[in-house]
């Protein structure tokens, strides 16, 4: 340390001396006159003395007459003459003392110059020309997405890039998206890619131990804080060699976002507006109240053998002499309609950009107001961003970016509101009638009825039991207000001009979230003594995040142009701290008092007052070098060391190497004859490792907790977690082979990638262990998994004339997951085939997972005779005493005898007993191919018509909605398909009889398995850009307008609502079950963009 201080003092001394030395130089006075192109004097022209590095020493401005006088300190310096409207001139001084200069107009710069520069790709650290990339990356300019009505950029990216799978968690405003690059690399650990904004990682995860009360972390959309209009382009780093530079948090891929920056020029204002209307499409037809009230007594009768006693169960009594029950339970309510509205979205954004020689700026202000299609949901966002560049000299420049966003997001208290509405008894009234039959104006929320009662809210935000969906939508609330400020400072210093450059970045991220929820009594109808009444919740999370990055980039120039080298060292630090607190109280005095601060019960079994705090730190040191020989052979190698505070001292550090290579075939001599047509043909190969840290802080530490109750007045302590001495880095080893082909002056481009990503020491947080150990789960490295597949992206411009241009692009990808090795503690099968609605899944090492097994459904037993058991030859099976044997289910442990009207399952082994021996392979829930394609047609550069489609091919889906809307097992409302149910002997149908809470009519069988292939017409846009001549008349720079329609149509054989069911989580036993009740919303957007 002492040495360091000495060195700094010494440095300061040197700088002072140098300054003094300069002060002693005698001054020289220069003067002159500046004229414009039309020979008129120009005022306010900056005349600056600049040194060899381009740093301004001294500057003056011209007066009204265009005259100036400047004292300069050295004749070796130069004179820079600049004005915003004219081209800058730099003149040598030497012995000249008079300068009469005529400025040239700037507009020449903006003429029709064909730019032949190549696209550069930015991995967030250094930018490398795309021609020289050795790794797998995808790139998209935000311009391509601007017509879509998307609140956050991930929404707009859906289906655009091969191997990047983005699915929405819900269609409500503010809902998060799930981004998966090349599948899920980890079972149950974090699979979200790292987001890098302007060279610095951008935190999207929220503290994992924060209990949301009524939301889950996947529902948290952090990217919502970046306005899509501020984004210039997006690069997705896919293979491990590319992500290796980002280290431990980049194991799941990296999304590099670059925001817009200022450019030299007059201030330019751009205003964009998007207005859209979203509509919930017609969903599954459900039973009306009348149909429902015939179904339920029938189900009850079938199951118990006695009729439903409507004297006690007045919900089905329909007695006009009892006006209270009659009026409240004789309606035909469409609960779904009652909670649905037309969504309207307004998105305004205004930005200003410009700058001069020294300083450039980009500033924007946006306002988004989105009203969801479910009553009670909205999102409002104000976002601002200022990106400033200041160029001190040719050697030193700094950037200061500041972004702030405020979002106010209201969502339904119950995340399963639609589900509740579908299940709700349709003969119930929304509003309550009094005992005289008059509408009281209150919501009809009985404390209990035949459907049950309100049973509480789960940690994932779903409400179980009954409650009035309309009251929940309108009166209950779940509000999230978040404010995020992200200042980012960057300093660049060229130590040796164009050879050695140092950059320093520091970014602070202050992210405050306030969640506020309230559940009014009117929604649940529960008595006031209970804690479910008027529950008010308040939860705050404050995150403070500091990251720094120091890069030293060495790019020597070789004498021979055959060699090129880009190398850098990067040291990054990350420190994330959070504090959270939650309060939950109940029984506030009225439904108007919705904050826990109002007088309310705090001591009860539900109340919560929790505060947590946590901190994570990591460091990374990276060496990377890229060497190119003759632009034909390019090698890249790097090694990164990572340290993370989430590991115990013995496993804290790890090294991750990476290497990649590109061979440009097209420049080889033997390819010369194709040179006319082939612009570029390259082969690439890469290998890279990167590490993944656990999700939770301190998880490796053995902790003791105190029970929240005492025993005999004494506090008791128990071991709450065990020490994880074996927990180590999850390593993803990626291998990638790629081909780039570009032909006919880039009119045909193709990128193909083949990859194998092997995840070693795969994390499994909460791996279930035998409870004889005293704990039932543990975080552990459990095995090895492979993700392998290919991606192909094609771009074609088949037709191009001066007037017309037709573009076509296409992408396709396939990914499969295979477990290669798994811990003994990991279970190998899942699912109880004897329980209704469950499928069996097995985990087989070296086989792709996602296959599921169940019974074969053969329809319905039409009468008693058909339930007689038969052997393989079709003869009746006779019992030992000669008695008739009827088909049984899972004899002996269940031993249920099938009755007429029950579901018939194929008796594969013909033993008269339907059990685990009769299950067969039913399908696999991994799609064979996924991807998208689109076309755009441009006419005279004025009209543009573009479309985009996405698709999934060969995927077996379990239609969960069908299971629960046709099982006739409880008091939940059913779909109109149940009108076909078996009702009496001899009925031949495909829907079994109604059976209240008994029977085996909805076992996991092929009845619910369907092909989920689809082709979706995702967007269609017509855009009109006003021609230059007309624009100039209107005195604007640019003016364009467009109309976009989203989710226009879906071609599929799938009978469920939405074949694009996202498989949540990454459990190898997962079965793609589609529980959606509504297809994706249709959105109609009108947009205008104008620049001044």
């Amino acid at each position: 340390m002492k040495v360091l201080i000495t060195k700094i003092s010494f440095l300061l001394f040197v700088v002072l001396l140098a300054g003094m030395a300069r002060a002693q130089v005698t001054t020289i006075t220069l003067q002159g006159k500046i004229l414009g192109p039309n020979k008129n004097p120009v005022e306010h022209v900056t005349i600056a003395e600049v040194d060899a590095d381009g740093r301004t020493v001294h500057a003056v401005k011209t007066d009204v007459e265009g005259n100036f006088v400047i004292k300069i300190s050295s004749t070796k310096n130069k004179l820079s003459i600049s004005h915003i409207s004219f081209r800058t001139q730099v003149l040598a001084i030497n012995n000249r003392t008079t300068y009469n200069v005529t400025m040239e107009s700037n507009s020449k710069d903006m003429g029709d110059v064909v730019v032949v520069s190549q696209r550069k790709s930015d991995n967030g650290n250094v930018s490398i020309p795309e021609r020289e990339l050795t790794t797998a990356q995808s790139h998209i300019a935000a311009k391509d997405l601007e017509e879509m009505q998307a609140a956050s950029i991930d929404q707009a990216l859906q289906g655009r890039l091969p191997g990047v799978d983005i699915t929405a968690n819900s269609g409500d405003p503010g809902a998060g998206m799930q981004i998966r690059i090349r599948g899920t690399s980890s079972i149950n650990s974090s699979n979200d890619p790292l987001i890098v904004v302007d060279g610095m990682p951008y935190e999207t995860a929220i503290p994992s131990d924060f209990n949301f009360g009524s939301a889950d972390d996947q529902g948290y959309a952090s990217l919502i804080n970046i306005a899509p209009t501020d984004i210039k382009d997006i690069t997705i780093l896919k293979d491990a060699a590319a992500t290796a530079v980002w280290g431990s948090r980049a194991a799941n891929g990296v999304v590099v976002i670059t925001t817009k920056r200022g450019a030299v020029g007059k201030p330019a204002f751009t205003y964009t507006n998007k207005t859209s209307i979203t509509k919930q499409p017609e969903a599954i037809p459900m039973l009306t109240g009348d149909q429902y009230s015939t179904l339920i007594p029938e189900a009850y009768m079938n199951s118990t053998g006695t009729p439903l006693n409507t004297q006690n169960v007045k919900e089905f009594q329909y007695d006009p002499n009892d006006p209270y029950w009659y009026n409240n339970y004789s309606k035909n309510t469409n609960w779904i309609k009652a909670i649905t509205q037309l969504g309207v979205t307004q998105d305004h954004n205004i930005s200003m950009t410009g700058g001069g020689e020294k300083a450039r700026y980009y500033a924007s202000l946006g306002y988004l107001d989105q009203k969801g299609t479910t009553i009670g949901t909205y999102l409002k966002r104000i976002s601002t961003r200022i990106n400033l560049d200041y160029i001190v000299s040719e050697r030193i420049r700094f950037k200061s970016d500041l972004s702030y966003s405020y979002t106010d997001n209201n969502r339904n208290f119950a995340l399963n509101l639609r589900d509740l509405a579908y299940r709700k008894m349709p003969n119930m009234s929304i509003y309550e009638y009094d005992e005289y039959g008059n509408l009281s104006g209150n919501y009809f929320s009985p404390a209990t009825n035949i459907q049950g009662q309100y049973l509480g809210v789960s940690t994932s935000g779903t409400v179980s039991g009954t409650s009035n969906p309309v009251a929940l939508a309108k009166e209950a609330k779940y509000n999230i207000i978040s404010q995020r400020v992200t200042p980012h400072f960057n300093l660049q210093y060229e130590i040796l001009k164009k050879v050695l450059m140092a950059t320093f970045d520091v970014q602070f991220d202050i992210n405050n979230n306030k969640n506020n929820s309230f559940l009014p009594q009117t929604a649940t109808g529960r008595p006031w003594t209970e804690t479910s009444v008027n529950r008010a919740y308040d939860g705050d999370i404050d995150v403070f995040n500091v990251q720094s990055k120091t890069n030293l980039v060495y790019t020597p120039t070789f004498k021979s142009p055959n060699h090129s080298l880009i190398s850098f060292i990067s040291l990054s630090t990350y420190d994330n701290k959070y504090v959270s607190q939650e309060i939950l109280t109940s029984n506030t005095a009225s439904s108007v008092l919705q904050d826990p601060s109002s007088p309310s019960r705090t001591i009860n079994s539900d109340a919560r007052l929790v505060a947590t705090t946590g901190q994570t730190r990591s460091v990374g040191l990276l060496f990377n070098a890229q060497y190119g020989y003759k632009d034909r052979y390019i090698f890249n190698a790097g090694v990164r060391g990572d340290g993370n505070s989430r590991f115990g001292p013995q496993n804290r550090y790890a090294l991750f190497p990476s290497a990649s290579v590109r061979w440009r075939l097209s420049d080889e001599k033997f390819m010369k004859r194709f040179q006319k047509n082939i612009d570029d043909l390259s082969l690439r190969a890469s290998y890279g490792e990167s590490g993944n840290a656990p999700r939770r802080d301190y998880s490796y530490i053995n902790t003791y907790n105190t029970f929240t109750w005492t025993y005999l007045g004494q506090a008791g302590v128990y071991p709450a977690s065990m020490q994880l001495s074996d927990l180590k880095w999850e390593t993803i080893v990626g291998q990638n082979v790629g081909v780039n082909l570009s032909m006919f002056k880039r009119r045909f481009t193709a990128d193909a990638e083949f990859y194998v990503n092997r995840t070693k020491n795969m994390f499994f947080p909460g791996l279930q262990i035998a409870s004889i150990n005293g704990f039932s789960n543990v975080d552990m490295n459990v095995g090895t998994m492979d993700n392998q597949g290919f991606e192909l992206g094609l771009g074609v411009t088949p037709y191009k004339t001066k007037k017309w241009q037709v573009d076509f692009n296409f992408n396709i990808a396939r990914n499969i997951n295979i477990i290669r090795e798994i811990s003994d503690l990991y279970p190998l099968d899942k699912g109880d085939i004897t329980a209704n609605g469950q499928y069996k899944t097995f985990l087989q090492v070296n086989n792709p997972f996602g296959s599921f097994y169940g019974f074969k459904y053969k329809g319905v037993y039409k009468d008693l005779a058909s339930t007689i058991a038969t052997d393989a030859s079709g003869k009746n099976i006779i019992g030992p005493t000669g008695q008739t044997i009827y088909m049984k289910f899972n004899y002996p442990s269940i031993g249920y005898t099938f009755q007429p009207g029950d579901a018939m399952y194929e008796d594969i082994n013909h033993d008269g007993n339907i059990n685990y021996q009769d299950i067969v392979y039913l399908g696999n829930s991994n799609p064979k191919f996924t991807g998208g394609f689109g076309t755009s047609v441009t006419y005279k550069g004025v009209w543009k018509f573009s479309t985009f489609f996405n698709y999934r091919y060969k995927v077996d889906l379990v239609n969960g909605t069908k299971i629960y809307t046709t099982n006739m097992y409880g008091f939940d409302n059913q779909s109109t398909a149940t009108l076909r149910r078996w009702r009496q002997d001899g009925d031949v149908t495909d829907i079994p009889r109604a059976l209240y809470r008994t029977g085996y009519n909805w076992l996991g069988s092929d009845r619910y398995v369907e092909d989920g292939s689809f082709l979706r017409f995702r967007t269609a846009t017509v855009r009109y850009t006003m021609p230059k001549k007309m624009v100039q008349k209107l005195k604007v720079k640019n003016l364009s307008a467009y109309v976009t329609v989203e989710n226009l149509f879906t071609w599929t054989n799938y009978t469920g609502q939405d074949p694009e069911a996202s498989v949540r989580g990454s459990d190898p036993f997962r079965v793609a079950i589609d529980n959606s009740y509504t297809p994706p919303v249709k959105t109609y957007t009108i947009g205008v963009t104008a620049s001044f």
Partner: protein
Amino acid sequence: MFTRTIFKVLMVVLLLPVVSCKKWLDLQPQDGLTGAEYWKTKEQVQAAVTGIYASLLGSATGSRNAAETFFLWGELRADMLTSTLATTNEQIDVINVNILPTNSIANWKGIYETINYCNTVIAFAPGVLAKDATFTQTALDRAVAEAKAIRALMYFYLVRTFDQVPLKLTATSSDKDIISLAKSSQDTVLAQVLKDLNEAEVYAVTDYGDRASNKGRITKAAINAIQADVYLWQEKYTECVAACNKIINSNSFGLISGNDANLWYQTLYVNGNSNESIFELQFDNQALNTFYTLFNTNQKKFLANPIVMDEVYTVDFTDPLKYDIRADGAAVRATDQLIWKYMGLSNTTSRAQVESYAHWIMYRYADVLLMKAEAQNQLGNGQEALDIVSLIRTRARALIATQQNLAATDKVGIADYVLKERAREFAFEGKRWFDILRNARRNNYQRLDLLLDMIAGTVPPNRQQSAIAKFKDKNCHYLPIYTYELTTNKALVQNPFYK
């Protein structure tokens, strides 16, 4: 030179964090006790022992608490309960002898958690001796005795419910300790249970100095009571009598007078920690028991079976002043069949939900007396058994209708009489199923008829035949291993009946 200096400064700035990052990356939670800081003082040992008891009242991980588990295991398959509309499917399946390995009532997680807390104390408390000079060997022995006794009690419940269970005697404190363990035979487990109890008996406390601790924590008498129960289960009657006599001869316990029915009920069940009590779980207003939701809300899961009033206690319709004090207003509320034992503040007033902290009695003096009676009868001392039953019946003012006049030599008759008296005395105290099973399995299932008769009365008519058929297989008397355990512990094999 200028550049070079800057370069040097740069290198220092670059390397400085690397040097100090070892410390920088070492973050400890700010809101919890870490293992590294624990097991250093005698207070920590004390807190860990208290933690064992606290874990019997409720679970830190959301498992079913021990008291409710003992109730379900001890009553659900017996004949004193009846279901309601709110009874869960799993509970009904157990009642109807339709138990599948997926039934969570067979989940033993909470019990093994407590066992791990015991193992942790047994493993780590001795180490404190060297670190805390004020921690004495005596204090250590007492702490370990308490842990071993609770562990023994837990295993005793497990073997009676599952027959064979894995015997885990080591603490799990790190991921290196996780093991898969096969089942041990009932004899092996019971041998370990007795070994633990005998070791604990040596060091256990007789008097903690306050009544609540004497009843709420393990004492010598509590250990003797568990020993008596284990010996009785093992059909070692001499040892059982000896263990009972240790308690009887200590003269520290007695029967609460039954002269005032309400006072008797309040002393024994409402206030708790009575002179009759030997070991009971001390629920209080911080740790409510879960019985309120089981027995008293609209969604109550169980009611008393009508036979409890009609046959077990009976009613004297000729003289309303003649009644068994253990019946209406104590075990049940006769008007609506409510299970009253844990719900009443007196014979007539009910507890509110916030007052639902009736203690769960594990052993009391009457239990010791009746265990002794059962053992003496088997040893051929039928008269002594009859005398004890008579003592219990007199205290309870049992009705003539339930009285039996048996010859002292009628071994079978006396055994049945003791069993019936136990039903009256310990109604809903989680003992009934184990009592019937113990009597049925005696002398190699000589009295299987006890179980078959019982099940014929509790199962709905359409399931009767299959239930009886199942009960003829003695493997069916034990619960299946919960599916979760089978998938997570590869060394486990499902119990025979459920394969």
